[in-house]
């Protein structure tokens, strides 16, 4: 357990499945060098196979006695999906537009399918997932090389690439399959909670870019913070599959409302609801009942009195309230430990009007090119 824990809350009532978070993460971290197949942030359709395929059945995590459970390492082709691209280069020569590999599987292959029968009772919702930066990480416990560590200052779980020897027990040990093997460097990699950003007071890219404004980021012990309020005060945000025993630190506000079912004649069945509570129980445990009850009560209260702190929080008015990163805290930690804070982003992506040219251009043209980078 770390001294403090940074956590994220995702309000599933508001996720529109736009994948902006996925793209934010991908362009920042995983579009290159063996990471192409990885989605440190993915948004899957629930019910569905998820990413990687059937991750909930691949083992890992701990049993009730606290023993690490064996797990399975997914296969790139069958379980993650080989990222394919197109033959842009050959188009000039008049070739037809073809993918470079025959796509047979990929993330969101079953997007928006869900379960049930259309139009009577079909349903689904989106489940965005990142590494849970667990308090008792399965990945860390499985590593025989002490290559995975949990930062004292904020509980972020990281792989020390210097120590990692590519054994992949971490992947078997993570019940969420949120740590990946990079075959090109022969080491494991995972979501870093954008630590170079958070150290500078910026939220993780997925949270900042989120169109639905569903993501809150803050320290669990920061009682003024919205994360603390959602998780500890109102208890409406719950960990995903806490039965795996890793004590995840991404918390979800469960989907509270769902449309009514239709009967055979297309008539609304009054009082019915499409989303079976058993499914939510499976994901979030029995606490989900209390969370939904609180959410409904606060919604009602808001309707009746116009007051509800919880509803105000969930409306997500201000980024400055949603993300409480306490930048001074990191400055302080850096000062005390004599470490340097990292640069906020990979500087190939800060190429802009007022910045120097990006590395790629410089590298390729063997010298500086005009400021402005890509053109």
């Amino acid at each position: 357990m770390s001294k403090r824990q940074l956590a994220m809350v995702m309000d599933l009532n508001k996720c529109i499945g736009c994948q902006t978070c996925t793209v934010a993460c991908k362009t920042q971290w995983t579009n290159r060098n063996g990471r192409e197949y990885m989605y440190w942030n993915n948004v899957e359709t629930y019910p569905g196979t998820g990413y990687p395929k059937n991750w909930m059945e691949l083992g890992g995590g701990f049993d009730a006695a606290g023993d690490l459970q064996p797990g399975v390492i997914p296969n790139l082709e069958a379980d993650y999906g080989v990222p394919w691209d197109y033959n842009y280069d050959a188009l000039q020569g008049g070739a037809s537009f073809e993918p470079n590999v025959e796509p047979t599987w990929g993330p969101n292959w079953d997007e928006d399918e869900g379960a049930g029968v259309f139009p009577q009772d079909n349903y689904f919702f989106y489940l965005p997932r990142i590494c849970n930066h667990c308090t008792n990480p399965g990945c860390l416990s499985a590593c025989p090389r002490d290559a995975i560590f949990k930062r004292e200052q904020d509980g972020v779980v990281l792989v020390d690439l210097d120590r990692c020897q590519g054994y992949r027990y971490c992947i078997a040990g993570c019940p969420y399959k949120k740590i990946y093997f990079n075959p090109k460097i022969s080491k494991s990699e995972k979501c870093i909670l954008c630590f170079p950003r958070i150290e500078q007071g910026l939220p993780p890219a997925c949270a900042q870019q989120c169109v639905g404004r569903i993501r809150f980021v803050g320290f669990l012990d920061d009682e003024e913070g919205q994360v603390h309020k959602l998780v500890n005060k109102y208890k409406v945000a719950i960990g995903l599959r806490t039965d795996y025993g890793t004590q995840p630190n991404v918390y979800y506000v469960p989907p509270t409302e769902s449309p009514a079912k239709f009967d055979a004649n297309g008539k609304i069945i009054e009082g019915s609801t499409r989303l079976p509570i058993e499914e939510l129980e499976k994901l979030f445990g029995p606490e989900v009942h209390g969370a939904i009850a609180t959410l409904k009560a606060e919604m009602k209260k808001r309707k009746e009195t116009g007051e509800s702190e919880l509803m105000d929080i969930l409306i997500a008015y201000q980024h400055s309230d949603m993300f409480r990163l306490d930048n001074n805290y990191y400055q302080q930690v850096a000062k005390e430990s004599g470490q340097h804070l990292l640069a906020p982003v990979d500087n190939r992506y800060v190429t802009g009007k007022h910045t120097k040219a990006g590395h790629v251009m410089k590298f390729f043209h063997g010298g500086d090119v005009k400021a402005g980078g890509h053109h």
Partner: protein
Amino acid sequence: MKKLTSTLVALATLATAVAADSAIDARKVTTSLDKVSNTSSVWNGAKFSTVTLYPQTTIEFNDKKANEINAENKAVKAQVAAVYNSAKIAFLIKWPDGTKNVQQGNRTDSYADGFAVQFASNYANPAELPYIGMGSEGRQALIHLQKQVVKFYEPNGNGDVATQVNPNQTELFGKDLKVFNAKVDTLASLDYEKSYVGEGFRSMTEIKDGSSNSQSTMTYGKNAWTGTLSRSLKDTYVDLNAAAIPVAFAVWDGEKMGRNGLKYLTAWTAVVFQKGDNTLVNALHGKIEGDATKGKESAIANGCTGCHQMEKTDAASLMGPSLTNIGGYATVDYLRESLVKPSAVVVPGYNRNAHSNYAWYNIENGKRVSTMPDHSWMEKADIDNIIAYLKTLKAEVK
């Protein structure tokens, strides 16, 4: 009758315990050992010895599929030769492997064949050699590893991030793209050869500053790998100028998802430079005193099976390390030390987080104190019997 059968079984296994591997005779050469491979002429007159590599079963890892396919592993026999000159020593090891496995750069579940040669930093006292496989606290081991990995791109700290982009994400086409790809290619490492210092599980650290030099090769043919390693007789970590030195070998089978502890390894084996002083040879290859049958009775009477899986047919235990192959890779002295001074070598707990209810050790005043009771109160003859029994615990040879 039941009693009699188990005695007979024990006797039968005892017979295999006696036929231990013998020491390796190193041959002195005057030729250079700077560039050695399996076709080097230095091997022409070398004397080959047989070493047996046992499946590592002390620790079970959390890879379900790998555990399944490795459950019935047998021991592997390899041929080893050693040559040396005034500055260097070279080894050749040839072991059977029905499939050639090279770890691929575009798959998440492909694994490499490989081999390693291990040296002890301090072997003055053969009774206190480093823990086999990765050393132990205060008893450092140096490990040279060669694996079969297609070209790989380890972070090299040179800041050449520009080449870490996916070629499809550059704005390059045609000839420009070819130039870019060629440049990226030059940054790949083609030879997965590494050296490590180990002082126990989790401690192993790669030597990256060039302070240990070695050169190794791996060649596949006729259902077998041949590995060679040449290194200086002396570096910061080991000094091999002696009448005899202990070495150990390990091999990995990529077909069986082998990596780190999922391997086959030998016990410490003596490499003899000069005949005469037999201390090391006797310690590692001497006759085993004691009566294995009585030892087994004694092991049961003393409750060893309460924490350790002893025989393959016993239930697995999360408490103590599994001893099903301990007779294959542990020396007599190590077994004795473990019984009478259980805290002398306490391998840093692989399972501290993974199995928090089964603490192998507690930390007292900063030292690891084994939870295994001290058996120094036992009669020497009784301990010898238990050791003789433990030495019978090992897989059959394939």
